[in-house]
């Protein structure tokens, strides 16, 4: 008779057992805020399609303290998403060779964050320029 009886351990709660995994779950969790924010925008777009009164109702609803509170949390979550998105980038993208040298992880993350900062400021400038 075969005396082997390999024991398979449970995966329950694996993500609580290591700080690395806790961080992973937090940055994956930013998706909830991305989804909710996209939902709010989608609702606004539908209201816009319904005409001026509907749109203005949506605009004033956005001043509701609960919405504002959500947006503060969403801002934190999306900023964290930006940070983690570029932090993992050296592992997710193909190697970039510049002048015969492989670009360092720090350089990839750093340029990603710099581009994001420029894109955000560019967007603000654009909106400001169009609204003025």
């Amino acid at each position: 008779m075969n005396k082997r009886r390999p024991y398979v351990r449970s995966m329950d709660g694996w993500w609580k057992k290591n700080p690395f995994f806790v961080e992973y779950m937090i940055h994956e969790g930013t998706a909830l805020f991305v989804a909710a924010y996209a939902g709010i925008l989608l609702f606004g777009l539908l209201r816009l399609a319904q005409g001026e009164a509907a749109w203005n109702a949506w605009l004033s609803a956005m001043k509701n303290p609960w919405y504002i509170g959500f947006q503060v949390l969403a801002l934190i979550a999306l900023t964290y998403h930006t940070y983690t998105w570029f932090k993992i980038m050296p592992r997710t993208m193909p190697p970039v060779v510049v002048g015969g040298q492989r670009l360092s992880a720090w350089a990839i993350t750093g340029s990603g964050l710099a581009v994001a900062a420029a894109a955000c400021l560019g967007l603000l400038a654009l909106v400001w320029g169009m609204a003025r």
Partner: protein
Amino acid sequence: MKPTLKRSNAPIFWALFGAGGMLSALLGPMLVFITGLAVPLGWLLPPDTMSYPRMLAFAQNFIGKGFIFAIIALFLWHAAHRIFHSLHDIGIHAGTAAKLLCYGSAMVGTLLAAYALLVIGF
């Protein structure tokens, strides 16, 4: 190994996830700041930044339409993909049901956005 390997359809969802992830990483924080905080609270930007005439004109403009559609649809697909995997991660291996719920919601949102943008006209 296994004689029959089934090709995964994940590239479709992964590509949408990646596009939405990149777009939200680049513009997400500022979009939330502008639409969720600056405009409702009257900070920094002119009070009529998101007034009806302005937003209507923006949504009727070809580029504006594309921008609004890309933001809403890709954000939804990005989030749907992550949430689908997170369900698996926390032990809800609902398979097809979870897939339908996550990607289905993103699909419905995408269609609604396209519908609204068409209704708004050109």
